[in-house]
């Protein structure tokens, strides 16, 4: 009963896709294919791989991730938040302890520093999830478990007309297998 329900949840009827999915074993072939496809004007292709490959990244001409900025902002906010908390909590009810200064940097620094790390860490996570479009609730391309093992997949969304041409191109570039979704 429960299992059935879970199955329903976990294996939804596969959505309909329009495009071509080529599957490669050799990394260099895949990289070439990517280059070729992009030159052929298919810039909106997606590559699936068990590990990131520099060749492919290079071929895709990816820039650096934007996460760093999110993290930086988070860290800044965290630090200010920490210091603000220290300042407010003391000024709202100034209690002298151990004859120490009410407002002194060293203790504040500890709090501010830890808060910075905390918020930076959290924003780093959120930034990554947002940019990498995680959690991914619906598939963008037909998925194959082998992508988590040793195969590389290249997905080019296109209409039925171009599909045939793409298939031959991929085959020409060492694709082990090409699935056409039309």
């Amino acid at each position, binding site marked *: 009963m*429960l299992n059935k329900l*879970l199955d329903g949840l*976990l294996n939804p009827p596969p959505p309909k896709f329009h495009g071509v999915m080529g599957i490669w074993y*050799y*990394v*260099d*072939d895949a990289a070439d294919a990517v280059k070729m496809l992009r030159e052929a004007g298919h810039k909106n292709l*997606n*590559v*699936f*791989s*068990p*590990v*990131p*490959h520099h060749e*492919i*990244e290079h071929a895709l001409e*990816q820039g*650096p*991730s934007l*996460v*760093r900025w999110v*993290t930086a902002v988070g860290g800044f906010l965290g630090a200010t938040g*920490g210091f603000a908390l220290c300042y*407010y*909590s*003391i000024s709202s*009810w100034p*209690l002298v302890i151990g004859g*120490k200064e009410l407002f*002194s940097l060293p203790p*504040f620094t*500890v*709090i501010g*520093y*830890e*808060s910075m*790390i*905390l918020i*930076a*860490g*959290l924003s*780093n*996570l959120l*930034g*990554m999830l947002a*940019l*990498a*479009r*995680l959690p*991914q*609730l619906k598939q*963008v*391309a037909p*998925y194959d*478990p082998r*992508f*988590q*093992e040793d195969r590389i997949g290249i997905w080019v969304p296109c209409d039925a007309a171009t599909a045939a041409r793409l298939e031959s191109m991929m085959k020409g570039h*060492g694709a082990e297998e090409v699935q056409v979704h039309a």
Partner: protein
Amino acid sequence: MSTTVKNLAMDGVNDVADRPLDQKTLNSDVMSMISLPGKVWWTIFILDLVVLGVALALVRNLIVHGWGVSGFMRPVMWAVDITNFVFWVGIAHCGTLVSAVLFLFRSHFRRAVYRLAEAMTVFGVLTAAMFPAIHTGRPWFDYWLFPYPNQRQLWTNVRSPLEWDVFAVNTYLTVSSIFFLVGLIPDVAACRDRAKHPIMKLLYTVISFGWTGANYQWKHFYGAYLFFAALATPLVFSVHSVVSWDFAMAQTPGWHSTLFAPYFVAGAIFSGVGMVIFLLVIVRKAYNMQHIVTIDHMEKLAKLVLLTSCMVGYSYLTEFFMAWYGPNKAERDVFWFRATGHYWWAFWIMFSCNVVFPMLLWMKSFRRNMTALLVLSIFVNIGMWFERFVIIVTSLTRSLNPANWFYYKISITECALIAGSFAWFFMFFLIFLRVLPSFSIAEIKETLPMPKRRGH
């Protein structure tokens, strides 16, 4: 033990013997651990739960009747509680160190071991965090330690080292857990694809966030991962420094020392790596993972132990030198008391386990002998527990005013706290072994030669 396993989660994965890895077998090998546990595992697990149950019963006693049920008294108002806390925080530190610091240093041997180390970190902090919570006289008011707007218009004392602890430890718990979980995403995705049992599949599906391994995912994944490492590294050092300041900021002789922060950090890494070795030696043997975690990996860890052991030993000597050389009579008394007084045995256990025995690691043959490493790692952890015990108890026993020098006697409650903390830790760890990939598939894969048509 995994030979007798009836495999549920995976299909077509049998016991793996030593053999060269390729991308596909790596997946299978690592995931072979994820399976319905056998008798051995269950025995250990049940025993663990029993110990934990007894401990919890005594903790309940503690809370109902008060800390009087323990052996604590004036002047020794902290003893095993904080000892455990520092010990487990220390254990926790190694994980982040291995995964974050070594990641930044691009030292590749980490890839084989960091997942286990990180798991240890998270569970270690979970264990450690319990002690500040239950060690208070009125645990039901612990939430007062967190700064939150309340009708009393009261705030916490941000100038107290203990309050720094609250921030540090909680930050550490949060960040290290995130680090751990994020690192898991690609591997869990792989598990997901193989999982048969719907509940397992659901679990993996949730943790893997629908990871597909698409290029845009990898891009941001590694972008973020780098920053996690960059954040976690300073965090490791700051957290244990803050923990050490719990003592260093006090003026109790034996505590009041500028040496403490680096000394504690070194000690933490020391004990942490010791624990990692302990776990790895057992796991790689029990699950035949020698081809994934190789002897070379182990030897590198052993060298790390040797290094930190030297640092710790140096700190001990420095402490004694300062006590002898400095003007403070009380300090001198404390250190003399440590080595020769009522708790001399604790001190010498600490010294031999942390400084003397590890010196064997200068021998390559010793470093590459798993049994030897196993034994040593146990000694290291015993030694490091006693280090905290010695620092806390002996210093307090010989407090400044001789008029109330009393000796602390450990009670059944504290014994339960010690046993319980280990039980608590291993409960998490045992489950982890059987549910999540204990070795980072994705990262190890990167170290494998990639199939290329045009040769290499």
